[in-house]
Every structure is written in structure tokens, then in C-alpha cells.
């Protein structure tokens, strides 16, 4: 399958907020109740369609633990979108959002689309962070906001796809320089004549994972 665009995402947020589970739900449509700690950085990929164009999402799932913060930073560069995740049942993860956002703004390009995600919306009984608070935070910092549940898959698709839509709109508006790969956007093989000199096969055979 050849895609029109490839968008790179990065998922960030405190440890245990469900970043890996969100990714697994999006790429494999399954939920793993017990997930090992993410060590370093892993990634998954999935094709979506926006405006009748195939778009490949390459999603980098980072480790949330403080010890890995420096590793995570080297992945901000070259991401077109970021999912900033907190856990609605743990207030401290919400409190840390500012730190994460600073980190993201500092290390990524300024046009990166950031989506704020309050995960674990299925655990309503244990909620500590109100939806309105998330909404307010997002408005204050110019983010898109959504509450999701990786367990029930509620809003998971939407979170990823809405981010992609936002990026796509920005491309249409000409905000992104799509020829600069550092922006995290790549034009598909058949759309870009400039990539012809790259070795064949090395592009299409992207690291295998997820559903594609």
C-alpha cells in the first residue's frame, strides 16, 4: 500500500497513564490489561484515510518514566503531532502536563499539533480530574482536548484521526513545509519524485509493527 503522506506522532505523558495501551488499541484494536513498562521507545503504524487520501501514521510510543526523559527528547524532533496523555484517575499526571508541554514545545518544531488526552475515561468512579479542567487546560495552551478509554476503545480512533486531520489542514494551508522531513511529514513514494534516488524497498519496508 502506498500512502500519500506519512505523519509522525509521538505519545508523551507520565508513566502508567496508558500511552502504550492507546497505541495498541489504535494499531491492533485490542487491550492488554497488564502492559510491561515501556523501556526506551517503541513504535507502531497504521493507515488511515482522510479526504480520500491514504495517510500512514507512524506513532512513537515513549517511556514515561522520569529516567527516560532524555531519551524521549531525542524523538520530539521530526514529529508532526503529539498526543499528550494524562490519567483522569491520578491528579499528579495532570499536574505534570505543564512540564511535558514545555519539553515538547522546546524540542519540537513550532507547528507540531498537540492533542491533550485524558485517558481511562471508563474508570468514572475513580475520577480525580474533571473533564472541565482538561478542557480549560487545553484552551489555555491552544491544544485539542479529548477524553478516551484504551480499555473500551472510546474516542481512541478519534484522537488519532482528529490529530491527523489537523495536520492535514495545516498542510493544505501551507503551514508545514512538507519537503522538510524534520517536520515529521513525508510525502508518499509515488507522490514525490525527489525520493527516487533513495534505495528501492528501503522506504516501503518500514519497521513492521501494528496492522500495516
Amino acid at each position, binding site marked *: 500500500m502506498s500512502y500519500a503522506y506519512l505523519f509522525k506522532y509521538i505519545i508523551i505523558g507520565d508513566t502508567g497513564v496508558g500511552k502504550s495501551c492507546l497505541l495498541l488499541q489504535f494499531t491492533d484494536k485490542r487491550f492488554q490489561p497488564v502492559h*510491561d*513498562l515501556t*523501556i*526506551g*521507545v*517503541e*513504535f507502531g503504524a497504521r493507515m488511515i484515510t482522510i479526504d480520500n487520501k491514504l495517510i500512514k501514521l507512524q506513532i512513537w510510543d515513549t*517511556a514515561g518514566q522520569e*529516567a*527516560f526523559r*532524555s*531519551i524521549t527528547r*531525542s*524523538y520530539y524532533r*521530526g514529529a508532526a503531532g503529539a498526543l499528550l496523555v494524562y490519567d483522569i484517575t491520578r491528579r499528579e499526571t495532570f499536574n505534570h502536563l505543564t512540564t511535558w508541554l514545555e519539553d515538547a514545545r522546546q524540542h519540537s518544531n513550532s507547528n507540531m499539533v498537540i492533542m491533550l488526552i485524558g485517558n481511562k475515561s471508563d474508570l468514572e468512579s475513580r475520577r480525580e480530574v474533571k473533564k472541565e479542567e482538561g478542557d480549560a487546560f487545553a484552551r489555555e495552551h491552544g491544544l485539542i482536548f479529548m477524553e478516551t478509554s484504551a480499555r473500551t476503545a472510546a474516542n481512541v480512533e478519534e484522537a488519532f484521526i482528529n490529530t491527523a486531520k489537523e495536520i492535514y489542514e495545516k498542510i493544505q494551508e501551507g503551514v508545514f513545509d512538507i519537503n522538510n522531513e524534520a517536520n515529521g511529514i513525508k510525502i508518499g513514494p509515488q507522490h514525490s519524485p525527489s525520493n527516487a*534516488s*533513495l*534505495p*528501492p*524497498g*528501503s*522506504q516501503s*519496508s*518500514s*519497521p*513492521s509493527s501494528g496492522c500495516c
Partner: protein
Amino acid sequence: MFQGVRVTASSSGHELFVLGDSDGYVHLVNRTFEIRSFSAYERGISLLHQSKDSPILVSIGEDEIGVNPVIKVWNLDKNDKHGDPVCLRITRATIPNKAVIASCLAVSDNLSLMAVGFVDGSIIIYRGDISRERSSKQKHLKDDLPSITGLAFQTSGKVIMLYVATVSSVEVYDVTHKDKEKKIHLDGKGCALRCSILAESLPNNDFMVARRDAVYCYTNFVLGPCYAISGEKIQLEWFRSYLVIVAKDMEPAPRISTRVNFFSDLNRDSHIITILDIQNKFIVFTALVKDVSAVLIEWGAIYVLSTDNSLCLIAKSQQYDAQGLMEIFRQFGDHLYIKGDHKGAMEQYIKTIGSLEPSYVIRKYKDSQQVENLTTYLQALHKDGVATGDHTTLLINCYTKLNKPELLKEFVMTKDREVDFNVEVAIEVCRHVSAEDALLLAEKHCLHSWYLTIQIEDQKKYNAALDYIGKLDFEQAEFMIKKYGITLLENVPEETTSFLKKLCTDYEPNNKNSDGSSYSGQQKANPEDFIHYFLNNSERLVEFLEHLIQISSKWSPHIYTTLLEHYIHVWGKQTDHHARLQYEQKIMRLLESPDASYDKLQALILCKAANFKSGILHLYEQNKMYQAILKYHVAQQDYSSLLVCCRRFGHQEPGLWVQALWAVAPQQNLPHDLLDEILSVIEKEKLLSPLSVVDALSYSPNVKVGNVKNYLNKIFQTELKLTEQQKALIEKYTQQTKKSRNTIEGIRNKCSACNKQLELPSVNLFCQHSYHQHCFQTFSENECPMCLPNNKQILDAIQSQEQSKDLHEVFHSQLDRADDAFSLVTAYLGRRVFTELTDYSKVAMGKFFLIVIMDSS
């Protein structure tokens, strides 16, 4: 090993370890650890590369003081006159006008490319067969790079890439085409010497670079995933799908799964060796090792060379290497077990599943105190799918011993996982331990037979069993009821009967709601199979069969016959008159039912055996055995019925009356009118000669002549009348004969022409006219003169018809004009329009053909 030698370079490949020391010697170590050394350089050796599959060794070292690295290529299989390997090539590895130290060396697998990196950031690429001096061309890549720390060739198809790691960057060159080298910048961070490696067996041939915080992968010219393993890395090695990381021992690596202390003295120079399974993202092995000088990989195993030059086997993996790991786990487990840490030992043993015989472990843990650990082990065995039936048995027994039914239940119900044990064995065991679980298990795995066996034989819960059968789909339900029907019927006759009724008519599994109805028509059990279950229960059988017959009438004769048999059986046992009557009616209704296709002969036998009168009679009648009915009535001396029977069937079988006579004659006390009626019928129908009647009656002890007087009188009178009639007839016929005879005489002897006595020669014609020859000749030539006019008329008519038949125009015009065209056509057909003329004229002529009988004289 090499005492007093300082190893400065190492490589492995072609079944050899290659070590270079500071004195310029190369040491080759083979599989049996035999060492062969030769002098390669005058001074030290800095870099070595042993080709994997060929005996080619590339070395970089110094022959003289100063910085003048020299590349030498050796063939290790060929020896010169001193017994040392042959040196194939000597090239100076220097950058023009500069004296720099070579920091790394890479050779492509096919030996056609070689690259040397220098501390000042330059790279020299040698193209062409590296073992030949002449064919090789060198190219100096002059990009302003920091000091080179790692080089690796990656070949995929025709494309050859050269990964370059420097102190502060990672680059990749496309070196496929000569002089068209193209650089792609990958990252602005670099790594230390020996801390980069190409992961060859991974699908994307990642270039791995170890930094302080993690190991980063570069794939497809971009930064890929990373593995966070902190510590100051010393060396990276790649072995099959494992990444071997040597780091300085700073702090424990995160997520340590197995930490084996090989060396108890933790001095400050020790290193951590971590083996990471990249595919499974799992740290396979971590160990503290003293003073690692190099990690060498060969013979399917990983060896560590320490600074005091002792070689130590770390791990063998995969194939037999996996076995090696298992052995390590086992030994550690044994160790912990001896120390009394049973739980810890079990953790190790669980890791050996797959290679270590489970009985080895089970035997160790068979004590009753160890049940818990044993359970853990057995669970792990099941999870890995290597458990046998015995293991399942043991595990279930363990659960019971632990008195943890909820665990057993969880295991048995296998929530969230595949079934990893032999279900039948599990049921068998559960059956003795906890029938409830066994039932659940059987139900879950659709082992209906087991379920029912337990339910019926152990639990005696017949109703539950029956309900369960009712939930199955048709084939299984039928099979099961066949298996357990007898038992069920004995114990819960009522429910079983109603279930059987359902099964034989319109079975639908209980738990299916909607779609069952569409094919229920085809699914009917054959009730014959179930009849014998009702062996001792006639009443139930009757109920069952009655139900069947009510639902449908298309059953085999066997069904009806059986029903009849049991009706009669029940009837025979009834003592109450009223009930008997009721059953009698039932039987008769069955017998008379037009649909009932019972076997008549068998039914007859049944009725006779039970002496069921009306049944017998009905059947006789059905089978047209009227004589049997007669005999029956006679035997019963039921003369009025006898008469009725004779009257009813006499016209079908007149012999009945005669039979009746013969049967009745010898009887005593015959009613008069009976004999009279028989005789009158016999007389009327003339069934028997009077003599035979008399003969028959003569057997009767009490029939007097007076009784038959009327009959005899009538007989005689008819006989007389008959004789007279016949006599008159004889008279009449004699006279007629006489008359005819005279006429014949007359015709025969007269000529038709002259009416005189015929004399020879004469002519006799078919038209029965005879003539004297001379008379005939005078009248005609060849036709009968008497018939001539008549014949002529006919011939004329034929001729005229033949003429008109040929006039087609006339026919057509007539057809046009005719009111009734059809009759016209018929008229023409009548004139034989469509047959050949000649045939019929011949026939016509034949009519008048002449036979002249001439006198022979």
C-alpha cells in the same frame, strides 16, 4: 591463556578467534582451544577483521615507529615456508600528507569493499577484491566529520550502505556506485569506539548505537526504536537476534530479570554484560564479569575475554545455545533449592520448561509442603503447552490439596487463554475430586458424553442430564439419548418419554431460539431405535407411540406393530371391564386407521396370542381370509355371525357357502333356518352338486331328511324341467340338419347355366357358381356369366374414381368452392387418392379370378 600478553585487537569468524597483541603477534584460537601464533607486525596491532566464511583476515598495525598504519590481508588456510599464513597484500592506510591513527575497520561480507576510519574523521574506502593489491582502488571521503568510532557495511540487494558512527554524529553513506558516494545525516549524537554494531539478522538490519542512556537503532535512514539500558557502554556485539552489551558496572540495569552473580568478589573493575533479546524485547541475561577485554562470538556461543586473558563462556543461545541457557537456569535452580529457597528455585525451574524433563522438577517438589510451588510449576508447564495428561492430573490434585477450588475453577475454565491441557484427562480427574468442576469443564468443551456420564452415573441427576441433552443439537442429542436412554428411562420415565417424543417429532435445541424451525423438518430421530428402551414399561411406550401417531402418520410398520402389541399387552392385563373396553376401542381404532401401516400378519399373530376377538376378525377380513373367519365363527358356534359373514363375503368368494355347509353339517343343535339358508344359496348359485350336499349332510348327526326335503324337491323339479327342455332342443336340431343336407345336395350337382346335372368337365367358380365347361365357354371367356353384370358395374365405378383422382386442378377448385373442405378431402381419401393405382386394380381383379377345374382325363 596467553600469559603476559596485552591483547589490543580481537575478531572472530571462520571458526576462529583472532587476537592481536601489542607485540605485533596474531593468535588464532580454534574450537578445541589450540593456539597458533605468528608475527604479523613489528610493533603493535590495532585492528583486526576476520571474514565470517572465508579464511581471509584483515589487520591494521604498525611496522615502524611513528603513525604509519599498514593494512595486511592474510589467507589463514595457506602457509608459507615458515608455516605461517600467507600475506596476500600490504597497503599503507594513510591519508595523504597526514599521519593519523586508524580507529576502525569494516569489510563487506563479499570481500569487495573495505573501509578504514581515522581519528581525524576521514574515511578511506577500498573498492575491488580486497585480497588483491592490484584491483583495489581507494577513495578518500573528505567530509568534515568528527573522529570516526564505528563503521559497518550493510548490503541489501545491490545497494550497499556504509554506516558511520563518530564521536558526535551518526551518518550513512550510499556507496553502491563508485565516486557517487552520498551522505545522509542521521543524528547529531555519536558514540564511543566499539559501541556501534550492525544487527544483521533483523529484518531491517538496524545499525545500533549505544550511548550512555540507551541503545538506539537507526533504520531506513531514520532514528528507530531505542532500548533504554543505562550505563557507560564499552562494547556492543550482535549475536543472532541478541544484542550483547558490555557496560561498566555503575548501577543495576533496569528491569533485571535474571541476575546471576558469577563472580562473588565485586571489585570496582567489573563489568556488566547484558544480553538483550531484541525481537522479544527482553533482557535474557545480565551478569557481572570482571575486567572484560572483549566479547567474542563464535561456535554459536558468546565468550568473554577478560584483561587477564582468561576466556569465559557466557552463554550459548538458540539451538544448542538455548539449551545452554536452560542448563544455567537449572543449575541456579538446584543451587537455590539446596539452600532452601524453594520458591526462588522454582522461578528458575520454570525458565527451564521446554528442555528440562519436568519430572526432574516435580520429583523435587513432591513433598506435601511444596504443593504450592509445584502448582506454580505445573501451571507454567500448561501455559507453555508442554504438559502431558499426567501433569494435568497432578495439577488438579494439587489444587484440591491446596483446598483452593476457586483456583481450580479458574484453571479449568481457562479464562483469557487457550486451552493448554488435555481436557479429557482434566475431566477424569475432576470427576473424582469435584464433580461440579468436571461438569463445567465438560460443558465448556462440549464433551457431552463426559458431561452426561458424570451427571448420570455419578451424580444421579437425571433431570439435569436430560435438560442438558435437550440443549444439544440434533445429532448429538440423538447419540446421547441412545447412549443413556435406558438409564434415564428407568429413573425419570415421564421426562424422558416426553423428551423422546420431541426428539422423534420436531426436535429443536432448547437454547436456540429462531433459526431452528427452518430445518426441523429434516431432523427426526427414528423412533424404532428407542422402542427397546421401553422394555419394561408398556404404558410409557404406549404413551410415546400414541404421541408419535398423533403427530404424523408416516411411520414404519414396526412402530404401529409395536404400539399394537403393547395395546394388546395392556389390554390383556386390565381387569376392569370399563378400561378393557376402552383399550379395545383403541386397538380397533388403530387397526381400522387407514394410515396405520402395521404388519398385518404380525398383528394377527398378536391378536391370536391375546385372543382378541374383534381384532382377529378385523384382520381376517383385511387379509381376505374369509374361510378363516368362517372357521372362527364355527369354532365359536356363533352361527348368526357365520351367516352374516357368509352373506357379506359370499359374492366375493362363493366357496364360503360350501365351506359353511361342510363346517356346519357335523355340528349339533343347528338352527333350522341356518341350514335352510345355506342350502337355498347353494341351490340358487349352483355351488355344489346335490349329491355332494347330501354327502355333506350325511355327516350330520341330527339333520333329518325332512329338513332337506324342500331342497331336494326343488332340485328334482329343476332337473326334470331341464331334461324336457333339452329333449325339445335335440328334436329341433335334427330337423335343421336334415334340411341343410338336402340343399347342399341340390346346389352341388347343377350347372348354373343350363340347370342340368353337372358332368365332367366342369368349371367351378369362387362365386359358388358351377358350369359345364361347354356351357361356360358359350357365355363367357373367363368370368362368371351370372356375376358379370354386377362386376362390370363395380369396375366402372373404380375407373371413374381413378380418373377424377388425377385431376388436381379440379380437386383444388372444388376445395376452394366447397363449404366443407374437410368432407371433400375425406371423399378423395375414400377414393384412394394417395395409394398406388395398380395395387388396387389387382385386388379388384382378384375378386373375379377364375379357377378352371379341368378333368384330369
